[in-house]
């Protein structure tokens, strides 16, 4: 329904992406899901970059496609049907670009955004989560919290900041050209002491640390990032000092429906695989689709995916219209990721034993769906966020 609001060219673009994914990405999706650490496979990223799709929502004046959120969500869904890991690379990229788009100054946009578009774009990574190895036996949950960014500013002189700290599980870090980071410019002030910066990865002192192994979305590699006395020049600071938390929350609200679109893609892929299998797999001389338990399950899967998709597109539509989108974003994320987990698990049951074999695409969907429910704020986080707005 909300799809009808996008222009005709955009719909054609989505169909083009669907074909592109079917011919080039789906056949290789299993090989993208590599367990062992290794070099990054640039071929699918280059393929998408050829169509200028790595950051499709950057406005046309900076070299992007200037797509609205609904189209972006639809494109991400199509890519996630092929490979959710590849879609997560795009999503993380958009995550880092988003602060620039919302609060960046004209000069910053003109300088940085054109580098992220075109045929050989630089990717970006958002460093959010912290992991302080803490050997004392006192629980310190706040070290995982954005509010207490441990990337501290050590000293400020002549408009130059020197920062120091450690960020962990930074998706895309290994391949990124830019890193978005929340600096704690005033640690006493807790939330109000943050500021966002987008730094080129070549800046002296930024060290990409060891690679983390993840269970899902393996194409999108996560690394440690170490900030070792990094000098940050004024021009890379985004927004006003102290605005970091607000900018972060706003961008979370704007990005979450896109993360939910990834869940939709995974759910759709799993559903289609299950539907296909149910028509080919035989039980007592009949396709198992003719068993009502199987076909009813499939009908229910389709129903839930439909409902989740409406929620996601509704949130995107609200963002496009600049209406109040915060609650709808959380709702989209909760429903899409819970539906994706349910659907992928049921799809595995329908496909049967072979789906449990390592390297089967249904098994990949299951792991990806779980990971998608955790990134960009877990389902529980969003439930809390939503509940605090309900009361």
């Amino acid at each position, binding site marked *: *329904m909300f799809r*009808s609001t996008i222009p005709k060219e955009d719909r054609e673009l989505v169909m083009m992406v669907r074909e592109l994914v079917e011919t080039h990405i789906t056949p290789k999706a299993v090989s993208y899901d590599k367990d062992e650490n290794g070099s990054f496979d640039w071929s699918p990223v280059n393929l998408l970059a050829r169509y200028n799709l790595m950051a499709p929502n950057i406005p046309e004046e900076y070299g992007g496609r200037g797509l609205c959120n609904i189209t972006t969500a639809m494109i991400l869904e199509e890519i996630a049907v092929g490979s959710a890991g590849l879609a997560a690379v795009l999503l993380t990229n958009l995550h880092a670009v988003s602060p620039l788009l919302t609060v960046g100054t004209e000069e910053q946009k003109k300088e940085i955004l054109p580098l992220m578009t075109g045929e050989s774009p630089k990717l970006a990574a958002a460093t959010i989560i912290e992991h302080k190895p803490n050997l004392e036996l006192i629980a310190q949950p706040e070290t995982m919290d954005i509010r207490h960014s441990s990337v501290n500013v050590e000293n400020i002189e002549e408009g130059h900041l020197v920062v120091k700290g450690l960020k962990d599980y930074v998706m895309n870090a290994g391949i990124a050209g830019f890193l978005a980071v929340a600096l704690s410019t005033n640690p006493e002030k807790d939330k109000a002491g943050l500021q966002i910066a987008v730094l080129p990865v070549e800046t002296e002192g930024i060290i990409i640390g060891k690679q983390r192994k993840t269970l899902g979305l393996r194409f999108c590699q996560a690394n440690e990032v170490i900030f070792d006395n990094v000098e940050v020049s004024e021009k890379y600071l985004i927004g006003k000092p102290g605005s970091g938390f607000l900018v972060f929350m706003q961008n979370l609200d704007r990005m979450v429906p896109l993360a939910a679109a990834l869940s939709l893609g995974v759910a759709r892929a799993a559903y289609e695989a299950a539907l296909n299998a149910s028509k080919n797999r035989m039980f007592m001389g009949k396709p198992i689709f003719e068993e009502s338990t199987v076909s009813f399950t499939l009908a229910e899967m389709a129903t839930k995916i*439909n409902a989740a998709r409406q*929620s996601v597109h509704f949130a995107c539509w609200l963002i496009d219209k600049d209406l109040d989108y915060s609650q709808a974003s959380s709702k989209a994320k909760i429903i899409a990721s819970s539906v994706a987990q349910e659907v992928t698990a049921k799809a595995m049951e329908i496909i049967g034993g072979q789906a449990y074999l390592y390297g089967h695409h249904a098994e990949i969907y299951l792991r990806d769906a779980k990971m998608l429910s955790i990134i960009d704020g877990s389902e529980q986080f969003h439930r809390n966020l939503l509940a605090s707005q309900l009361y």
Partner: protein
Amino acid sequence: MATFILSKEEIELINEVHELAVKKIAPRAADLDVIGDGIQDWSIPELLAEKNLLAPIIPEEYGGRGLSMVATAAVIEELAAGCAGAAAMVVQNIYAVTPILIAGNKKLKEKFLPLLSVRHPHLAAIAINETRPDYNLERPESQSEEITRISTTFCYNKDGEKVLIEGSKDYIINGAEASFVTLLARDKESRHKSSLQFFVIPGDNSGVEVREVLRKIGLRSCHTVKMGFNNVEIPSDYAVGRRGGGYLLLLQTFDINRTLLGAIAVGVAKAAFNLALKAARNNSLLGMNSPSKYYISSSLADMSTQIDAARLSVLRAAYCIDVDENYARVSGMARLYATQVAQQVTSNAVDIIGRLGFLIGHPAEKYLRDAQMLSMIAGSDYLHKKVLAAQL
């Protein structure tokens, strides 16, 4: 140009309906619910007729409001938040007029449609379910899809000017006091599905009788009966559509109006959610740091998420009907999802409200019963899953 965004007038209308539902219908519905469904109460239809809401989809040329499906769904949702029975009454009217709107001739439309759009309240009913369906006694594998189980028969007389209808129909909402009943019957000679046809029978025609008043546990404010049609003679002008076109018309009527059942479910779920939210806010046991506060708030967050998704599913189906896209599948999905959500949400709401919510007469227990009923009427959840599965 059809759109899913309501116009300013439509939003005003929906606000009016909201006022009406909360202030006038809900208190009356609680009373009716206690009495049970022994009588056809006219107070609610009177209130609705005042606003010309008994069948808001009737086009303006026949005196109706001519609302789009999107606006109708919103109106039904608001009504259902006040009383699901009132909304079911309106939906039943819409069911009854849909075959006439789609395939009826001009004379039929001019005669029957204005009844539902005048100031004096009238009701209409649709009669599909059989008291005694024709069951096939053959083994299931040799049963044919082509054979209908409708056992009510019609038979044109020799000169083709009169039709005789014979049979009995079950579970007819609004049936007892209906000004006209839209009835599905098969040809006396044939049991084939292609022999079905719809007829409009005036409620006061001789031979139409109420056999039994059904007492049910949900939607008690809408009166439901079993009806008999003993050699009912009507002019052949009262036939809807072409001879034998009944089956397609039946499918179309159900595909369109299922969406509205979804809208009732969303309305009930919304009312139950609001009640639970209010209870959770006022419950002093759920203080700032109580662990059950987190449990309940996450449950409330889930409920509101599901209600929104259900509403959007219904909206999508209504939009597809308005723009005449392929709506059969989306309306089935909307109905299935919305009733499931309504059942979950009403049951969770009773959990949150606690023991008070389980007392007879508390709104929460009424929502619970109403939501349960919604998955029975106009095809059960299983039927819908079967239909959907066949379309995958």
